[in-house]
């Protein structure tokens, strides 16, 4: 039946029920078969591993070698924070690769989400920094479930023109002169741990009951001084740029980007010690066996010095590969607060407080939620 003929018949009401149903069935069948047809044409996309990662890590600079090798990028899907990712994975989501940070590894391993990684299959592994190879809590029973890709610091970015301080300290976030113009990151690791370090906890990641109490009091004391808690770094950067807040907890990239925009800010090196975080990459226990080879190539691409240069220059983060540091000008490194020589880097990493898995995490999180709710 011709299309126009059909329409004419339909309009005049002369179409038979059977004919109409045939056409409906045909339309339905073709609709259903569209995805099947296009799938066979694009088989290659199916062969790439699926990466579950932080939004932002899909930039091609991170995996240029992989793209050069296979001609296209792997498949991405994103999380906002690791708790959200964890909940999704526990509910049965099965990507091939995830990108958690080091302090989450024990929990994820306990939940049976991660598969061991064979570092002998990574050509860039020998070039990685000693300090990041030895991040505590990663290797258990000789099995490594995670490799570090990048590292940087959590510290205060403050407006040099609006803040007067004698020495750099986390105490700026408790300074009543700046009440209502301070901001914190809304997370256990980058928020509560700041209070723990400022409160002088011996090991912020494994606190005693008194230290927890002290941390809680500090958070309660700080709450009325804060403009907001935020996980959204764009909000923090905009607030710093406009002068709505004068100091906020950030990572290196925010300070770098604000400086490049001409905002007078400095990334603090607090006397109590900044926090160093390392984030990396893990193979999932349920990864598709057919994609494992490509998954290793992808991890290797992320560890390559080229990816390292991109990350140092564009994000201001340190990279796992020491060769990357040799390929970047010393002036550029200094601008980002990063050292040049490998021994210095190892010493630098060893000096900060490496973010470790938090003991009593659920209780601390509830405490934090209660403080935020006004307890």
């Amino acid at each position, binding site marked *: 039946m011709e299309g126009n003929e059909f329409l004419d018949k339909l309009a005049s009401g002369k179409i038979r029920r059977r004919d109409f149903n045939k056409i409906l069935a045909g339309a339905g069948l073709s609709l259903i078969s569209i995805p099947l047809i296009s799938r066979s044409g694009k088989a290659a996309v199916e062969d790439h591993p699926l990466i579950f990662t932080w939004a932002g890590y899909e930039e091609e600079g991170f995996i240029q070698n992989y793209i050069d090798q296979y001609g296209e990028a792997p498949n991405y899907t994103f999380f906002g924070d690791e708790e*959200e990712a964890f909940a999704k994975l526990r509910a049965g989501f099965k990507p091939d690769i995830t990108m958690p940070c080091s302090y989450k590894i024990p929990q994820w391993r306990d939940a049976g989400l991660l598969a061991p990684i064979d570092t002998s299959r990574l050509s860039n592994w020998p070039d990685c920094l000693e300090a990041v190879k030895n991040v505590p809590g990663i290797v258990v029973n000789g099995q490594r479930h995670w490799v570090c890709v990048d590292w940087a610091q959590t510290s205060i970015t403050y407006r040099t023109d609006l803040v007067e301080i004698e020495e750099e300290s986390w105490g700026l976030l408790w300074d009543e002169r700046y009440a209502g113009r301070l901001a914190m990151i809304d997370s256990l690791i980058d928020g509560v741990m700041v209070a723990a370090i400022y409160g002088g906890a011996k090991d912020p990641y494994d606190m005693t009951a008194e230290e927890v109490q002290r941390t809680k009091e500090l958070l309660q004391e700080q709450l009325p001084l*804060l403009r*907001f*808690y935020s996980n959204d770094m764009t909000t923090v950067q905009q607030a710093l740029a406009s002068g709505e807040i004068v100091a906020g907890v950030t990572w290196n990239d925010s300070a770098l980007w604000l400086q490049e925009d001409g905002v007078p800010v400095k990334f603090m090196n607090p006397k109590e010690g900044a926090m160093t975080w390392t984030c990396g990459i893990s193979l999932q226990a349920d990864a598709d066996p057919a994609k494992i080879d490509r998954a290793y190539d992808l991890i290797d691409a992320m560890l390559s010095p080229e990816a390292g240069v991109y990350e140092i220059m564009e994000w201001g983060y340190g990279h796992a590969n020491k060769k990357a540091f040799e390929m970047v000008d010393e002036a550029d490194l200094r601008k980002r607060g990063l050292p040049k020589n490998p021994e210095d880097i190892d010493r630098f990493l060893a000096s900060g407080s490496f973010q470790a898995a938090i003991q009593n995490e659920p209780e601390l999180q509830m405490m934090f939620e209660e403080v935020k709710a006004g307890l």
Partner: protein
Amino acid sequence: MAERVAPVPAPVGKVRLGLTTRLRAVTLRSEPIRGYALLSPTLGLMILALALPIGLLITFSFWTQVYLDFDRSFTFGRYIKFFTNTEYSKFFESWYWISLALAIPLFVPAFPWKRRLGALLIVGYPAIAFYLIGLSVEKAIYPMLLWKSIKISGAVTLATVVLAYPMAYFIAFHVKKNKLIWLILITVPFWTSYLLRVFAWKIILGYNGVFNSGLMSLGLIEEPFMFLLYSQFAVVLTLAHAWAAFAILPIYVSLEKIDRSLLEAATDLGDGPVARFLRVTLPLSMPGVIAASLLVFIPTVGDYVTPNLVGGTTGIMIGNIIQSMFGKANNWPLGGASSVISMIAITALICAFLWLTKRMKRQIA
């Protein structure tokens, strides 16, 4: 249907009918079964989409979270934690003394039993209340947060209904042509996503947002107003805007239905415009107002996106903490208990609200 009623009475005891035929005969004869069968698609959907999740939530709320798993033994611990923020055992330690004190009236021999029970109630309720309040002062963060959420939602409901009423009134009484276009115009802001509407308010109320920079360029203020964003005020304003359509439409419908001759009659009998509105229009539009209040109040109590984005440190609501219980804090049982208690509290409030409006209506009539 032909097969439903046999045209000829079947000869009893001679022909054995097939099982399916007999089954069909039985099911078709029973009115309730036929009714439920007719309802079954809807009923199935209701059970899957509503009853099952709530059932799961209630089940969770009686369990205990142990690291990544649940302890599935039955306990009221999460409920006690919600109200007192103390652990189970400690609660009963103090509870023991309280119940002893409560029992005192029972041992006063001079009164008859009825009076003794009465005294127990008179002493008992305030004692329990004071006990809970005593704990509340420092510890009962969750009931306080729930109360705060209810207050914020109450303010939102009031603001929404008060702002929506004139709009609905205008369309119902003063728009003569193209009413549909006016109604569609009202829904235009709702064609964008909820999140976008919240962000729009962030831009309007922000530190260097539309409002502040406007006032500054007019020279009316020196420093931007800080209270506009990241406050309870911002939460109320944003929610009131976001839910406006849900208030305007029901109020419009009930205003539209009012018989215009009643208004003429009121005028003929000497009522001025204000008295006429208060004595005729408003009471007759009450069903719409009530529906609007419920439609706005119920969903906003549990909202967590808006407080998260514009609430700052003071605008946190119960939804935020429940969300983190199911996410970051990974304590599903406590989250379940908090949700169940919130649901019960909201239901109780709504019942009280409906009862009150009913009484008021009777007084007006």
